[in-house]
């Protein structure tokens, strides 16, 4: 009887500990890739809570000089960070309550569209409902002893590491896409200029021959 009570108690204790551990590993992120036309400015807004943290990372993947203007401003309209013609950047903001605005500006370019990738990582948003709190939906009970907390800790640890892994993968994907676009434009450029080069050479060669011949033609006429 006593053992049963102890068992039941340990059930409640462990599950609560598990919920507490789960709450601190909340991290939401989203990433977007879009084309910014020449001479345009595009703005995005993100609603934040107080004392959360917002990390934004962006990269220019394609388009002429691979650079763009970027700035981020707080809900009160105060300019927090401003980058001029950078190829990539990372900024972290400790947030207050409200909508943060960040903009990508391609006004300095008149002809080239920029392909821009950005990623938002939000921390400590602690939403009222914990989306990972599946206690209500899970069926059956786990047979518990004191070791289960350790397993839960490990699982949360692994989950956090995997999230970090996914973030790194996203960054690497952006780098690779940029390098690939650079190379493909190189390829096009080499093809085009080679053809131009060939044409110019032929034309110049023919022109030279014609000019020299015409010189002599005139002289012959002059003499006779």
């Amino acid at each position, binding site marked *: 009887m006593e053992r049963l009570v102890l068992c039941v108690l340990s059930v409640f204790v462990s599950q609560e500990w598990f919920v507490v551990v789960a709450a601190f590993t909340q991290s939401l992120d989203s990433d977007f*890739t879009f084309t910014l036309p020449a001479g345009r400015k595009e703005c995005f807004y993100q609603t934040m809570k107080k004392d959360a943290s917002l990390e934004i990372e962006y990269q220019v993947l394609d388009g002429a000089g691979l650079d763009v203007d970027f700035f981020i401003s707080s809900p009160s309209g105060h300019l927090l960070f401003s980058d001029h013609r950078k190829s990539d950047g990372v900024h972290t903001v400790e947030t207050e309550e409200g909508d943060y605005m960040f903009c990508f500006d391609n006004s300095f370019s008149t002809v080239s569209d920029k392909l821009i990738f950005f990623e938002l990582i939000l921390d400590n948003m602690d939403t009222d409902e914990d989306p990972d709190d*599946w206690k209500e*939906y899970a069926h059956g009970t786990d047979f518990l002893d004191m070791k289960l907390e350790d397993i839960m800790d490990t699982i949360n640890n692994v989950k956090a590491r995997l999230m970090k892994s*996914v973030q790194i993968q996203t960054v690497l994907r952006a780098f690779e896409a940029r390098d690939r676009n650079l190379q493909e434009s190189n*390829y096009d450029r*080499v093809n085009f200029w080679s053809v131009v080069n060939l044409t110019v050479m032929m034309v110049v060669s023919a022109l030279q*021959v014609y000019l020299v*011949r015409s010189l002599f033609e005139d002289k012959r006429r002059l003499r006779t």
Partner: protein
Amino acid sequence: MKALVIGIERTVFSTISGLYFHIGETEKKCFIEEIPDDTMVIGKYRTQLFDKQTNSFLPATPGLGMHVEIKDPDTKIILSRQYGSDGRFTFTSHTPGEHQICLHSNSSKLALFAGGKLRVHLDVQVGEHTNNYPEIAAKDKLSELQLRARQLLDQVEQIQKEQNYQRYREERFRMTSESTNQRVLWWSIAQTVILIVTGIWQMKHLKSFFEAKKLV
């Protein structure tokens, strides 16, 4: 059971992550998602219309919808549908590559817009994030530990798929680079040969020309 239904509803409609942007009346906003094949993508959006009278954004105007168009890496349209002011679209990729998701409003009633702006909240989930775990728990009758293990497995599988796709892209990249280098090499050699041959021909021709005209 009721808790389960409420739970599922909450997960679907609750936090659209809070990122929003403004879109004009005829404007089309496009986003690119580069994904491996056989990956599910779920997009959710919520619209609000700017009301000049109250100078704020009103929620969910009925009758104002968004047209969603999704193109696959071969620029073939795989989804082209109209949704309401709040919508949810989903597709699964069959070829790996850059898929394009385009949104534009379908307002035929200009009065609704009246030169104002439309605020669109957008949330796009890819791959493992599309899984609805409460639903999976109910269907397979999993305990919490099993559910967590299942989520970890799904995540790792997604990472593995992405890495395979990355390897395929790197191979293509390497082939293009090598092809470029080869072309540059062969073209330089060809140019030099042509140059030399043209030079020799020029000299020979001029010499025979001068001799013919009895100048030399």
